[in-house]
């Protein structure tokens, strides 16, 4: 291998928190990298999330995206192509050669990076796949009536509604809100037998934001189990249980009532109960990056039994963030740091071998 063939030491695919974090960590190690983002602007999911602070920061991690974007913009070692897609990938003599092509993307979005101008081909020592997971499409659970009954929204939609101030005094003020957990997760029959890790946390945080903005609003949390989110979270749980109605039952369906959606669930005696709400939120989970014909096939990354990508693929391929399994923002950021460290070691070894 000839080091002069390398166009960019590391190529990172996906400009969400994981991809940006990998780029920043590499640049801290003095290594240049190129980030390829499909959309018009980097940021990934976190760009759609609201701040969930009430009296204090709820440690949701959403604002860390801002830090990463600023740092990525400030570091000259990072090249960021937006509106770009990988069309082919090939490995030879330990190097990857990857073809990129511009993709029609909407308006020019503010933020670091510039749209890819024309087709190009880049040779690199290591590839980090940071394409994120796929958020479950609630249409896949038609019994929860998303898109069919007004007032039923996915949690992703709720994030945006809260960020835009669409819920609160002077805006929409629902009297009763229900969260249905584990939509598209912990569902063996649906072929999704994993816990998505983040949805208990984000749902309870958003529930608290709603209660804070609208103290009169009643919030019900339909769930199986509450997952753990660190020391402070565990300490807050008892007070959350006083503020929010916890119902341990997975609703069977959501129906259209006269006043709005109705949630049907097994009551304390086991008999079905139908209760009306103004707003029903489906806490959608995270699944593997989209299936057939997608990137990991291009790179030959091995999916695990659930379809998430193994952290280390064939020579010089690394996977970071939610693409490797459901992860929170903070976890994705840290996880990408490890991928960056491994990629740096790989590039270092390549260069050393080339020097003889």
């Amino acid at each position, binding site marked *: 291998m000839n080091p002069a063939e390398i166009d960019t030491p590391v190529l990172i695919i996906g400009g969400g928190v994981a991809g940006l974090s990998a780029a920043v960590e590499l640049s801290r*190690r003095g290594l240049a990298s190129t980030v390829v983002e499909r959309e018009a602007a980097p940021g990934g999911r976190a760009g759609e999330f609201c701040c969930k602070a009430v009296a*204090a*920061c709820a440690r949701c991690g959403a604002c860390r995206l801002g830090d990463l974007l600023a740092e990525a913009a400030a570091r*000259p070692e990072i090249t960021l192509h937006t509106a770009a897609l990988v069309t082919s990938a090939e490995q030879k003599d330990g190097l990857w050669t990857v073809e990129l092509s511009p993709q029609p993307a909407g308006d020019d979005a503010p933020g670091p990076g510039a749209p890819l101008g024309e087709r190009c081909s880049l040779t690199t020592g290591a590839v980090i796949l940071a394409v994120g997971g796929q958020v479950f499409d609630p249409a896949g659970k038609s019994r929860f009536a998303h898109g069919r009954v007004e007032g039923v929204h996915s949690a992703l939609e709720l994030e945006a509604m809260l960020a835009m101030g669409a819920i609160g005094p002077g805006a929409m003020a629902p009297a009763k809100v229900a969260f249905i957990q584990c939509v598209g997760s912990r569902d*063996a029959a649906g072929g999704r037998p994993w816990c998505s890790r983040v949805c208990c946390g984000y749902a309870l945080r958003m529930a608290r934001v709603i209660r804070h903005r609208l103290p009169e609003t009643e919030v019900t949390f339909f769930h199986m189990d509450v997952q753990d989110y660190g020391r402070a979270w565990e300490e807050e749980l008892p007070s959350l249980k006083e503020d929010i109605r916890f119902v341990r039952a997975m609703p069977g369906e959501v129906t259209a009532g006269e006043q709005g959606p109705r949630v049907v669930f097994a009551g304390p005696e086991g008999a079905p109960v139908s209760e009306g709400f103004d707003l029903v939120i489906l806490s959608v989970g995270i699944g593997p990056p989209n299936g057939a014909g997608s990137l990991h096939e291009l790179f030959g990354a091995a999916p695990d039994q659930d379809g998430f990508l193994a952290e280390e693929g064939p020579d010089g391929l690394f996977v970071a963030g939610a693409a490797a399994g459901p992860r929170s923002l903070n976890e994705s950021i840290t996880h990408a*740091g*490890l991928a960056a460290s491994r990629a740096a070691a790989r590039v270092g070894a390549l260069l050393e071998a080339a020097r003889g």
Partner: protein
Amino acid sequence: MPARVSLIWQEAPGLSGLDPAQVALAAGVELDDGGLVEAAVVTVAQERAPRGLQERLAGLPVSWLDLAAEIGGGGDAHRLARAATAVARAAGRAAKGTLPPVYAPQPAQSVLVAGAGLGALAAAWEAAALGHPVTLATPFGDAATPGADDDPQAVGLMAAQLPAQVELATECELIGLAGSAGGFSARLMGPQGESSQGFGAVFLAPPGELAPGCEIHGLNPELCVLASKLDPEDWQGPEDAWLHAAVLAGSAQAAPSYSFAAALEAALALAKRPRVQVSLFYTEARVAVPGAERLFRDCRAAGVLPMRVEPGGLEVRGGHTLAWFDPLLGEEITLEPAVAVMAEQSGAPRPAWLDNELTVKPWDLLVPENPRLAGGKTSRSGLYILGSLRGTAPGAPRRAEAAAATADMHARLTGRVVPMPAVRDQLCARCLSCVRACPHGVPQFVGFGIACSPAGCVACGICAAECPAEAIAPPGWGQPEMLAALEAALAVAPEPKMVLFACGQSGMPAASALSASGHQWPAGLVIFPLVCAGRTSQVLVTRALELGAKGVLTAGCHPGNCRSISGNLVAAAKLEMVQGMLAELGLDPEAVSFLPLASNQTRELAQAVEALAVKAEEA
């Protein structure tokens, strides 16, 4: 004598349509003509300036100004006025002649990893890979000894891969620590006795210990086995009867996910033994680790009876009987297990010296649950606390944590920015306010004066805000520069004048995003970027009011999200004092306020500034 300030115009997105000559004229500075420069304002952030320009300005007082972040949308005249205000502010500061921080790559420094197990080895490996000489002080006789909660095989592998730069100190413990990044002094106790050594950074990763993951009091200890100590082969039912095994993964409180998953593995292994009936007790099924939900299903399929109990609902009677209430059957059930397998939680005792030596920082301030301190960081710059002592789950999360911590260490020690606070010894009253106030432990009382270690400082300016003698400040953030900047900006800003002090982690990124999206700010708004909201002071805010500002808003992070831990709280407290003072004088206390904000809360910031403008119009 104040220096003559030149405006060096660099085009950037968001600056188009502005005429540099007009901006310079309106701001009262000279437009650079390529000639001699005494002091300068440059219209882009330093990182984005061309290298040639950086070289030309080396050694000069320069205000690097992200001008586009402060302008936003509006008509030409409006944008010109906003640009002039921002340039005037930056020029006011540059005219004071303070040199900007030194920008020079620093050599790698030696670091100490004190501890054992996966996290400690990973930190040593990563730090060495980044070129730092590493001392690995382990309490054990070799590097390959795992902590009780580690996978011994993974630890053995990592120990075998340790590079030569890692110097191993066996049977050696850290017993004391002082200093901060770039200047730690560590006391080590080894076989040869006590020694003291200097390090650039310290990673504390004591080996993990295992304890039951849920409290179940009163059970006969002879019945109890920790999940990791269980050998399923030991158990099987007699020829003609079932042997009852209880797996305890929650009672008073739920076991954490990693611990619940290990309990599931134990339950599954036991259930596969001949004639063993396993009951799994839990309050919450904590399945948020890879594979756990699947394992939970496999357990049920293998005949494990899941018994969900209410918190505290599992009672122990006579040391050997478990009793609980079954809501479906509506009656109490009891079980006398032959063995009780306990889910276990890892942890490590807090070294006593940690509380003694870093007295200004009790544990919750040293390791707060703050998203900005994720990845092993602590509030003491250059000190990283990893693994079981921090409560990080065993296995993969520890490797990732070690990688994040070492990357942060590397950036801190070798990064280009060294904003070491300057202490003017002849002014210093030795009041130690800075030592108490600095959230990162940078100023230290050494000899008979204040010494700061170069790499530790993040330039939050909290020390400068607290120092009664104007003796300490990170470069450019001293009282004289801040006041000069404020005066210059308010002299140029149109009426009604207002000031937004914007924290670099929250208020300023939000303002910058609003500007980039074309948001139109009130013409008279002076945006004053700070590194941390904690740099505000009563003097600064009251001076803004004296100079004609009708309102002063300080936008800082939400409590618990401040990079400098308490800068936001300090700011809010100071502003409250100013409000009290205004009320006493019969003035409107609401003219001054603190806005808790996250960088993604642009809408909230726009609304708060709008409200400020409405009030200012009325005033």
